[in-house]
């Protein structure tokens, strides 16, 4: 890890209790190294936005956190509890947790996908209440009441009984956010959640995320929306080639990047989107 990233980690890490600890994750697809010894610590209530070019490993890193992707080295803990792999106390070796334990650990990590991934055969409210009822054993009436509260929060109170196919992309994505929140996760992951949306629908989804950040949710956000990243982030993490190249406060990374790589990326980005 270079100097730039280690100092930034210290800055961000000092005042907050760590909620997410990614330690030395490496992953390869065949011969391609997608993640190379990536470590990241996210404090409780912190909003970390991960940016970087396509294929830099941002999405893979996010998916490794709740083991939607497996990884060859490293460990992840959420609020101190391991998810996926445990270090054996005596040998120091990495041991994979049982499928049941992994499923239980995933409850605490909410994730929202680029393609919404709502369950098409369930109504909006069923989408939201299914996991709390069937996974956590919450009474259906309570889960549905909470579901309606969450729908109100994302501005979709009138859509509870609709089916996903009848909603716009932006509405579906807000339902997906509500569905993830219904499990009362300790941390929320957002994987390019606006990339599949028509431009005029992006705002409503970002607003819901902003609301969530204000409420103190710990969030890791992968996005290409740079201005949104600047607004919402406590910390920006720049990834390229499977490593964290630079991280720091938004103003610093966006206006005074320490590495040439980030400078180049931002310049290209600005050139493309200048109107």
């Amino acid at each position: 890890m270079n100097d730039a990233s280690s100092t930034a980690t210290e800055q961000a890490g000092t005042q907050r209790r760590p909620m997410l600890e990614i330690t030395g994750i490496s992953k390869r697809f065949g011969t391609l190294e997608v993640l190379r010894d990536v470590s990241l610590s996210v404090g409780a209530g912190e909003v970390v936005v991960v940016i970087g070019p396509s294929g830099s490993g941002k999405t893979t890193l996010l998916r490794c956190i709740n083991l939607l992707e497996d990884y060859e080295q490293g460990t992840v803990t959420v609020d101190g509890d391991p998810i996926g792999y445990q270090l054996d106390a005596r040998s120091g070796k990495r041991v994979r947790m049982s499928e049941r334990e992994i499923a239980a650990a995933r409850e605490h990590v909410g994730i929202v996908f680029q393609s919404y991934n709502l369950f098409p055969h369930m109504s909006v409210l069923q989408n939201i209440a299914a996991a709390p009822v069937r996974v956590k054993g919450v009474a259906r009436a309570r889960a549905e009441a909470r579901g309606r509260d969450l729908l109100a929060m994302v501005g979709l109170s009138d859509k509870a009984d609709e089916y996903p196919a009848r909603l716009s992309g932006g509405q579906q994505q807000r339902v997906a956010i509500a569905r993830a929140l219904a499990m009362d996760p300790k941390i929320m992951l957002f994987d390019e959640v606006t990339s599949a949306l028509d431009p005029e629908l992006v705002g409503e989804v970002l607003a819901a995320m902003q609301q969530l950040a204000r409420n103190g949710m710990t969030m890791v956000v992968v996005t290409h929306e740079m201005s949104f990243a600047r607004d919402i982030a406590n910390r920006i993490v720049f990834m390229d080639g499977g490593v964290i190249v630079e991280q720091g406060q938004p103003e610093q990374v966006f206006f005074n990047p320490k590495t040439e790589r980030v400078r180049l990326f931002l310049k290209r980005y600005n050139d493309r989107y200048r109107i």
Partner: protein
Amino acid sequence: MREFAPLLHGYWYLLRGAEMTLLMAVVAVIPATLLGIAIALLQIFGSRFARAAVVGYLFFIRGIPLLVLLTFTYYLLPLTGIDLPPFWGVVLVLAFYYGAFMSEVFRAGILSLPRAQWDAARSLGMTRRLMLQIVIFPQALRLAAPPFVNLCVNLVKATSLVSIVGLWELTMASREIVERTLAPFQIFLGAAAIYFCICYTLALYGKYLERRVLHGH
């Protein structure tokens, strides 16, 4: 009209044969379906050994005509000392035979769901069993319904083969009447009409399911 007198005399006998045909089809389709689902799951989630065994079974079944399998089992069962009434022997063969084809239908249904559905279910902390139960099966079965009904139509028609091993059903009943009346054309026209009514009704239902799949919810 007089030409159809044999049919008028024999129609009740034919209908009783049809009853037997339907009974056999219904009794066979239940284990065939369960077997099909079990094999599909084994093929997707099973160990390397289980998958190899399943592939061998499918290979075997697909390569043999049903008529040969029925006849073979008819002669083989007594030799193995298994004392099974012919009806159940036939049901067994039909179940194993159609179970193989049904497994393909269910497997295709399950695999045609986007991976993202699995991701979403897993991310909510669902175990595999729960995922299958509330996310995957409800969607996969809907997709599999039209080809499933198509197989059911095939199964109904295939029951006509079992008369070869002496089981009494619609085709056998027709042959018996023909032997007495010497009016094969009329009688088999009646039998064909009955088969057609059963299968066409099923096919219409399949079409209805297909429309529902295509037009979503």
